[in-house]
């Protein structure tokens, strides 16, 4: 497979993409020209403006098709590699029991004003997701699920009280970057409250995070769409059992 690729419409290398957007201008020829200018700036060659529709008086919605002139270099793609082995629930339990010798404590919550618990519940509750049981099902994990709209100070206090090994935080609302602000606030609060060695592993998740932004947000790991409980359990064992042991 070539390492340099282009989008594919119906022929290899044609570069074709579809684009839609609204411009804050009334619909006229100039608006259409503006739409094509934007398409050109985005690197579309021979852009076809196939749909323009006025919305109210001052806006126009456009659909544009065209060939992207940009090349994608697969060698330059950065992905967060799954740098740990995938374990079954039994393997997780065995590893904790044998190597840690005590239950591993996980505290979970939706912080800030976020009340979307379905995602964190999918990871934590017995019911689980995608045919997998949640972390509560793992005998060697002790799960404390604080639910929705938990204030960051409450989360920190509870994590300290429970002597949490890991804190799992979900953020689904992303408007005005709420998920990023809340995550940064949470990371800062833990950093302030606890010295490095005592700090629980900080894990955040939600459908719109960029997995590569962990360091920037001050957390240890980010999980996104399609995460399953065993992904998380395997990671926890890797970081809190295997890696600690090998140090």
């Amino acid at each position, binding site marked *: 497979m070539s390492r340099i690729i282009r989008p594919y419409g119906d022929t290899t290398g044609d570069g074709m993409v579809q684009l839609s957007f609204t411009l804050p201008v009334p619909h006229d020829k100039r608006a259409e020209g503006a739409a094509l200018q934007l398409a050109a700036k985005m690197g579309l060659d021979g852009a076809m403006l196939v749909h323009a529709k006025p*919305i109210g008086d001052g806006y126009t919605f456009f659909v544009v098709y065209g060939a992207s002139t940009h090349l994608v270099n697969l060698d330059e793609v950065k992905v967060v590699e799954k740098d740990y082995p995938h374990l079954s629930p039994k393997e997780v339990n065995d590893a904790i029991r044998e190597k840690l010798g005590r239950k591993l404590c996980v505290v979970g919550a939706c912080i800030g004003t976020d009340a979307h618990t379905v995602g964190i519940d999918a990871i934590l509750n017995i019911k689980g997701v995608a045919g997998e049981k949640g972390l509560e099902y793992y005998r060697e994990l002790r799960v404390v699920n604080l639910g929705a709209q938990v204030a960051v100070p409450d989360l920190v206090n509870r994590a300290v009280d429970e002597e949490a090994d890991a804190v799992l935080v979900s953020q689904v609302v992303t408007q005005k970057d709420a998920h990023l602000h809340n995550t940064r606030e949470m990371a800062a609060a833990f950093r302030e409250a606890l010295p490095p060695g005592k700090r629980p592993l900080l894990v955040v998740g939600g459908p719109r995070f960029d997995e590569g932004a962990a360091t920037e947000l001050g957390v240890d790991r980010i999980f996104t769409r399609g995460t399953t409980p065993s992904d998380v359990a395997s990671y926890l064992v890797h970081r809190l059992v295997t890696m600690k042991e090998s140090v």
Partner: protein
Amino acid sequence: MTAELPLDPAVVAEARRLAAKAAQPVVDIARSHTTVSVERATLRLAGLTGADPDGIPWVNRLADAVQEQVGIEHGIALPVFHALKDFPDLERLAHAAAAGGVRFALPTGGDKQTARARAQAAVLHGFDRIDQSRSRRDALVAEIGDPPQRPWIYLIVATGDIYEDIPQAQAAAKAGADVIAVIRSTGQSLLDYVPEGATREGFAGTYATGENFRLMRAALDETSREVGRYIRLTNYASGLCMPEIAALAGMHRLDMMLNDSMYGILFRDINPIRTFVDQRFSRQVHARAGIIINTGEDNYLTTADAVDAAHTVTVSQLLNERFAHEAGLPDPLLGLGHAFEINPEVPESFRLELAHALLARQLFPDAPLKWMPPTKHMTGDVFRGNLLDGFFNLAGVMTGQSILLVGMMTEAVVTPWLSDRDIALQNVRYVLSACAGLAEDFYPPKDGFIANRANQVLGEAVDLLGRIVDDGLLNAIADGTFGIMKRPADGGRGLDGVAKRAEDYWNPAAAILDGDHA
């Protein structure tokens, strides 16, 4: 002109009987308790507005002071209006109380009579405003007209900034919306006060405030005339301040309010007792104001499965109906909710939706049912999303739904963009026009898939109601019966704001609403 299901009237009657029985203990609790928000709502009806420099409303400062000194179990009206004798108005009293300069006490004898009369007069003034708003709405509807079609088209705006919301709402109305809902900022429902004034900062929604209500209603009055139909305005009475927001909505002529008997409990972890007490009062206010309530059964299906838990929707609708009737809301104000949330991968999913939607339609023939779009099974595939929304619209037309909340193709991505709304309205317009009379051709056979499914759901609902009657509704909620959320009666937020009414409890608003203010 909607298809008819072969439901056994005896079973339907049994379902209602059980719902009434299940609701009664909770109604008894609601009648025998008060909450800080009920008391603050009374102050709002009495005309107290404004907030301290930190943004804490004077109703809170005043109620807090009374609560601290004499508690709320007697009702705060008498202590407040007794103390008012030394102040020109409630606001000045609140200032002083906030500064710690007022001693509150329960008046007795002649003082009590004076305070009582004063309180009653003040609160009646609030009810006058509500009554006037209601007449004004009636007059405007008579003058400008209702939407020409059913379902009414319900659109949300959610910028967080009332001054961005207004033009977007006006544009939406011009593009075809009949009802505008201003989505509330996440978090407001957990605030134990109602913010003041026009607001420009909210997350995924705009704060519900009296001033925001006023601004938006005024803007929509203007637009109503332009488009030749009265555009209704909706907001949320749910949350810790349900009664106060209901009062504000009544006075500012909102037309519909989201008001569910259990939403706050299940999805905001608000204490069940607090919720039921607040709910009763708020619904009484809505009844007075002629406001259509919108219940929140759709939400259960975002956490529970829409097929497995279909009967919990029916049960909740019956409970919501019962609580609403008890609070004085007639059927035409009962916007019971349900939703198109079956996994589209399920075979015959569309026919299952039709079965559920028809069941609701037939159980509540006079209620303006609110039909909610797919959300749970929407994904980032916006092309598929627009298609699902089209079938949702179709189910709404085929089953005679009353209010159609317009689904957005970007449901799984962002709060709606301007263009999303436009695409969604175009979708609704196409389906409503292309299939206008299709219900005329829709005759599910009496022993067919749809009829059987509807009867099955009804049967399961009756069974569940039976179990709830046996266990008690509060226990059922604690056990995760609705939306798989487990909420014990002594858990959740706001319990400290609830008090059992004392023997001598008196609240002029409650008295008027209960009709025993003679």
